[in-house]
């Protein structure tokens, strides 16, 4: 994981955590019929947050700032998803915020910083 590019780390963890976040919709019987769409959408949202957080982590090495940026991105994308449905704002934005923070943290802690990646190439 250390040798992995930070953007790839962001994409991988964004996918996993996004899918996990989407999968919890299974606990709500009224949306079980839309599980596939929710999981794909949530995974895609997680990957977008991961991509941008990973890019930021290559530029700035600070765990605190990484968490803040990740959570803001998570909140922003979750808001866009909720706005598209114009419903479930709290249910989508609150977990999106925390998932963004986790992705921001992981991209800071894992993967190769840009300078090191350049040296290896």
């Amino acid at each position, binding site marked *: 994981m250390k040798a992995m590019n930070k953007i790839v780390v962001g994409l991988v963890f964004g996918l996993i955590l996004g899918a996990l976040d989407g999968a*919890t919709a299974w606990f*709500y019987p009224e949306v079980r019929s839309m599980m596939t769409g929710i999981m794909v959408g949530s995974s895609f949202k997680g990957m977008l947050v991961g991509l941008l957080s990973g890019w930021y982590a290559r530029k700035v090495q600070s765990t605190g700032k990484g968490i803040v940026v990740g959570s803001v991105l998570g909140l922003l994308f979750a808001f866009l998803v909720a706005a598209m449905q114009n419903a479930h704002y709290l249910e989508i934005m*609150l*977990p999106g915020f*925390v*998932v963004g923070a*986790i992705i921001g*943290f992981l991209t800071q802690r894992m993967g190769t910083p840009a300078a090191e990646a350049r040296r290896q190439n």
Partner: protein
Amino acid sequence: MELSDAVVAHLREVADRPDLTGTRYDLEREIGRGGMGVVYAACDRELDRRVALKVMDAALCGEPRLMARLEHPAIVPVYETGMLPDGRVFYAMKLVSGVRLDAFLESDASLAERLRVIQRVGEALAFAHSRGVLHRDLKPQNVMTGTFGEVYVMDWGVEAVAGTPAFRAPEGACDTRSDIYSLGALLQVAVDRLKPVPQLRAIAAKAMTPNPAARYPDATSLLAEIERFQNGFAVEAYPESPWETGLRYARRSAVLLWLLAAFVTVKFFLFFLRSR
């Protein structure tokens, strides 16, 4: 005529002072005395700067050449070497302002600050070993910590010096492993006054093993162990219990665990909010 003790002491001090005639230095005062010579604070008239001037007891001495070979941020740079009219060798070096490591360790310096000093000393030692130079007498009195965080290892050993008992390896012979023993003793002294840290004590104990072959092979390995400890990884010298391993992982991943806990809490909160 009888002279008072104070007068006799003053005369003795003046008589002991090296004759710097023909050099570019003005003597100020004695600042230290070691097994191989006396160190004075002096003023370099030509460059108008203060220097430390070490006057060796022996007529011929390889110490300045030894130190001049070691250009490293944690090793005091030698400016010049020369000979006094009485045949003794002297050398001028950077005058380090700060406190000796023994005084520093008596202060309330934190564990991180203490380890930083030990790491700087270890780096200097590793560098010297890579150049084929041994210290032979590493002890707190031979390490200076500057006011701006700089660390200098001084008094690089020569054949005549056999080391200081508490920091000297039991085998007597001088090689890189005997320097490792001294570095371990230094680490032990550095962490002794603080709350016991078993991992660091184990690292020091391994460095001070009576059997040289069982010690760390080089200073870099010892430093790597300290770094592993600082980064929250397991150290080879300390076999930890499963409970300690779990605690260490939890400490290392505290932020991640808090974030995951927040995620689970949020999910539970939303679930119960909906089910009400």
